[in-house]
């Protein structure tokens, strides 16, 4: 089922069911051709779906659950499948044979292993000691557990155990009317409200064959969210190396940006802003002018703050060469967002699967894959987004309608929606059951794959650099725990 030149969240008839062998063959062939796995999951129809993509091309295909409940794992050959296969195993008990790390992902209700019984990799060596961190962390952040195997001060291995945030959100999405799930979608990750919200809205609109209004306002909010999230990370990075001025200046700049989001919709995180069919709140001329002035001032301040920060050699000595991810690893493991782009992999859904026109958009990348690359790339993306925000504010017509009526869903259709959030590629994919509800719904937050990057980045680093590496990726716990 090949779709070329996708410029709209595609809606498809369910694909032909194929045999396991041809399904796996097709995956191998496509990955060798340069396709990345965007999703790979089981559904309540007892089918395994694979969604693979490369710029402007998507392929979706499926196979029945194997009768033996076993199939040869794809992970040894293509590590990008590792978390998907673990998820499939946890949710449906299908065993990818020879998977090197077949451990639970979220510990859902009724799962075979309880979160407290999780078995960590350990070592009998007298040279190795273990350090456990979390789930409750020192700062005000979400819960997750990090288990370090240490040789002296050097990290030999980091195992990341998540699932503490699991809220059974997907089952709540498929019960009841799909079009009324906006408030729930806003909590997939409360810091990526517009990213996940846009993906959900586009998906429902595709399933209903309706075109939304106010795409420019949605696009504006998405870029503002990106700027705010990157500023929050830059602030935390500066704080982690005790560069207090950067920490405070970036935090204050983030306040300006999210307070501007509040002046649009009433929420600093963009909650309440989106609805299926468009947006809830219009922008008037006065607000547009205020936003333009504020964002312009922000851009000037962000530039001078970043220049001052990167002129600080003691800060650079902590950032440079710390927590490296090689270009080859970023590609092999299918990372997205900053985690990939900082290692020179130019993946960005705004270029690869644009849902709106992004004239002249160029994916920003860095090459060194270290903390500095991720920090500097965030700065580059902030400046690019602020430029886009100015252009969007020029474009927005205050008198244009902001909501379009949305039809009922067309039963038995599959829709795919891909959005570049602040953390990377957000994929929503769902199949409609009847005119109102979904049969299944799959959410893939970029963090689900990118957590592996953190684990790889800290290997052979000093444990004291862990907080810095962690912040440089800035991954979501609830987005991957759902």
């Amino acid at each position, binding site marked *: 089922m090949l779709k070329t030149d996708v410029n709209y969240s595609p809606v498809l008839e369910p694909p032909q069911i194929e045999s396991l062998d041809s399904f796996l063959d097709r995956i191998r062939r496509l990955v060798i051709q340069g396709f990345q796995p965007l999703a790979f999951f089981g559904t309540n129809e007892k089918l395994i779906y694979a969604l693979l993509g490369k710029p402007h091309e998507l392929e979706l295909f499926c196979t029945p659950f194997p009768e033996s409940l076993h199939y040869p794992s794809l992970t040894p050959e293509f590590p990008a499948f590792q978390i998907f296969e673990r998820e499939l195993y946890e949710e449906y008990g299908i065993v990818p044979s020879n998977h090197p790390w077949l451990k639970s992902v979220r*510990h*859902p*209700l009724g799962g075979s292993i309880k*979160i*407290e019984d999780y078995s960590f990799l350990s070592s009998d060596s007298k040279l190795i000691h273990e350090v456990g961190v979390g*789930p*409750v962390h*020192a*700062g*005000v*952040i*979400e*819960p997750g557990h990090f288990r370090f195997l240490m040789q002296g001060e050097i990290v030999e291995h980091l195992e990341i155990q998540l*699932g*503490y*945030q*699991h*809220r*059974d*959100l997907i089952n*709540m999405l498929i019960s009841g009317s799909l079009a*009324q799930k*906006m*408030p*729930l979608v*806003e*909590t*997939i*990750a*409360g*810091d990526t*409200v517009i990213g996940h919200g846009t993906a959900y809205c586009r998906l429902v609109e595709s399933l209903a064959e309706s075109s939304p209004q106010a795409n420019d306002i949605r696009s504006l909010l998405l870029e503002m969210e990106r700027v705010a999230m990157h500023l*929050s990370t830059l602030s935390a990075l500066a704080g982690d190396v005790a560069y207090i*001025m950067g920490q*405070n*200046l970036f*935090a*204050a700049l983030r*306040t300006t940006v999210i*307070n501007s989001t*509040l*002046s*649009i*919709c*009433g*929420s*600093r*995180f963009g*909650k*309440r802003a989106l609805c299926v069919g468009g947006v*809830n*709140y219009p922008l008037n001329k006065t607000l547009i002018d205020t936003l333009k002035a504020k964002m312009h001032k922000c851009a000037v*301040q962000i530039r*001078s703050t970043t*220049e*001052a920060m990167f*002129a600080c050699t003691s800060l650079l000595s902590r950032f440079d060469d710390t927590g490296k991810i090689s270009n080859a690893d970023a590609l092999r493991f299918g990372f997205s967002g900053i985690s990939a782009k900082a290692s020179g992999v130019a993946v960005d859904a705004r270029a690869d699967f644009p849902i709106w026109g992004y004239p002249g958009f160029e994916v920003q990348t860095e090459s060194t894959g270290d903390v500095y690359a991720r920090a500097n790339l965030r700065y580059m993306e902030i400046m690019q987004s602020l430029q886009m925000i100015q252009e969007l504010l020029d474009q927005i017509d205050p008198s244009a309608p902001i909501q379009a009526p949305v039809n009922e869903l067309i039963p038995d259709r599959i829709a795919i929606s891909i959005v570049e959030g602040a953390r990377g590629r957000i994929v929503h994919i769902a199949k409609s059951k009847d005119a109102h509800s979904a049969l299944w719904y799959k959410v893939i937050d970029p963090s689900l794959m990118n957590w592996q990057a953190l684990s790889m980045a800290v290997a052979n680093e000093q444990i004291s650099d862990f907080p810095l590496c962690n912040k440089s990726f800035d991954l979501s*716990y*609830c987005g991957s*725990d759902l």
Partner: protein
Amino acid sequence: MIFPTAGVTSKMLHLLQARFRHGYQAIPDPLTVGIDPAFPGLPELAIDADLELLNKLCPTKAFTSQGLDLGRCIFCGLCSRKYPEMIVFRPNYKMAADSREKLIMAPGQTVLPKMDFMLPRKFRYSFALRSVSAAGCNACEMELGASNNVNFDISRYGVETVASPRHADALILTGPISRNMADALNETWRAIPEPKYLILCGACAISGGLFADSAAIDRSFLKHWQACLYIPGCPAHPLSIVSAMYSIMRGS
């Protein structure tokens, strides 16, 4: 010895320039400062509001026969956009109560009842919080973090967030409490020395919010322990958090 004068000067200039442009960012008085009129704060229900009709729209079923339960409300605005004559959300961030019952806004009511609870005198100028996120979506967590940033600066009142529960006077909970976090929450609470206080921040923590009926939630912790302060919101705004904390430390 060579002094890299030029380099130092330009670096210093960068720094001073950035600092100068930054200006003064702290809100002079976060207890009285005005807020953007777009902010949906304390709601007002019309005397004749049809609560059943409003409840049908509500994703968390926050309307009871007595009024709107701020502990459940996620301020999504579905009700006020459709029936602006029945309910409006005022840009009033002073929303907090010392009991669950006081969070219900009856039709015609414009302010929340005065709080009776006050911390003992020894906490008036120093109160240490240990934050626990138990399946919070990171919005409340970020707002809690923001309460301590250069703008809101809750530490000016002596409130600090500490890393160890051993150093804490209170636990501030965000999120609906997932089953997978229930043990860790209990253990953190047990590790806080007496006297200790429990604060619930955000709709999820207060009532379970959107996740009240989720199978993966375990709220039994709250059956054993009583909170002294409830801060509604989805997420709670930093100004709500600052004014709520101030009111239990030094009175409203």
